[in-house]
């Protein structure tokens, strides 16, 4: 028995791919958004698509920029802010997994979100290492 995710977390390349119609993984990244939308619109539990704010900074995703309009609309991703407690947890995850600051915030957001979680990433090695440190059903999907 498999369970659809309640939350999809966008990592760096997922954002890059969704933002650029010419990106080689644009269509694949869209597939996940499309499935989430079809399911949310069909009397099923909605799938939340979220992005850690640090990841928005890293990828240069400025929601107010005209160039981000399509990305804002097709992803409908919700910002997850980094508060003091979340920063502490991200710092612990970073230290334990030896990953970048931004990757640690992805794991922290995954840990704090409704389960099951799917992380869309091209950095599956680091994300698998992080997923092993957090509780609950976390699926690392290589974009």
């Amino acid at each position, binding site marked *: 028995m*498999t*369970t*659809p*995710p309640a939350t*999809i977390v966008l990592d760096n390349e997922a954002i890059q791919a969704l933002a650029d*119609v010419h990106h080689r993984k*644009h*269509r*694949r990244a*869209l*597939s*996940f*958004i*499309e*499935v*989430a*939308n*079809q*399911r*949310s*619109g*069909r009397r099923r539990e*909605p799938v939340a698509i979220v992005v850690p704010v640090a990841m928005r900074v890293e990828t240069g995703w400025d*929601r107010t920029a005209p160039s981000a309009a*399509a990305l*804002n*609309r*097709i992803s*409908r991703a919700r910002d997850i802010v980094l508060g003091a407690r979340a920063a502490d947890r991200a710092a612990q995850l970073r230290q334990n997994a030896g990953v970048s600051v931004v990757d640690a915030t992805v794991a922290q957001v995954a840990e704090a979100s409704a389960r*099951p979680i*799917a992380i869309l990433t091209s950095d599956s090695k680091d994300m698998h290492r992080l997923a092993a440190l957090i509780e609950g*059903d976390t*699926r690392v*999907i290589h974009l």
Partner: protein
Amino acid sequence: MKRPVPRDEDLFALLDRLDAHGPTVVSSVRQPAALKEALKVAVGLGLDANANDATVQALRDRLEAFAQRRALDAHYAAHPEVRPSLVELAQAAAELDGDPLAIEPALIHRAATEIVAFRPRATADDVLVYAAGLRSQANA
């Protein structure tokens, strides 16, 4: 006075302005009595903190899904070549669900190809159910 024509831009602008601490208005909604009672029971069972939160969240989810649908359709209209195929959607659904079928792309491909013959509007989830059936049949 003539009402303005609804525009996608307005829908997105309003949804983007939604904020839990933003201004609120009181409005009355005619609803089936049983729905109101069911909501009360569901809140009692832990659905949400109160009926208001549950109603607002459900409405917001519905509007967000509708707005995203409009955005995706507009995107495919502008760039038809990026519309994912049924095979790609089923593959994505399997990966999202942690479904063992995700490592059987050939089976997903076969299921997607066969199912549209009798269900032209098949969804990714329909394909996965069909693919699971094919696998069971093969294992029998």
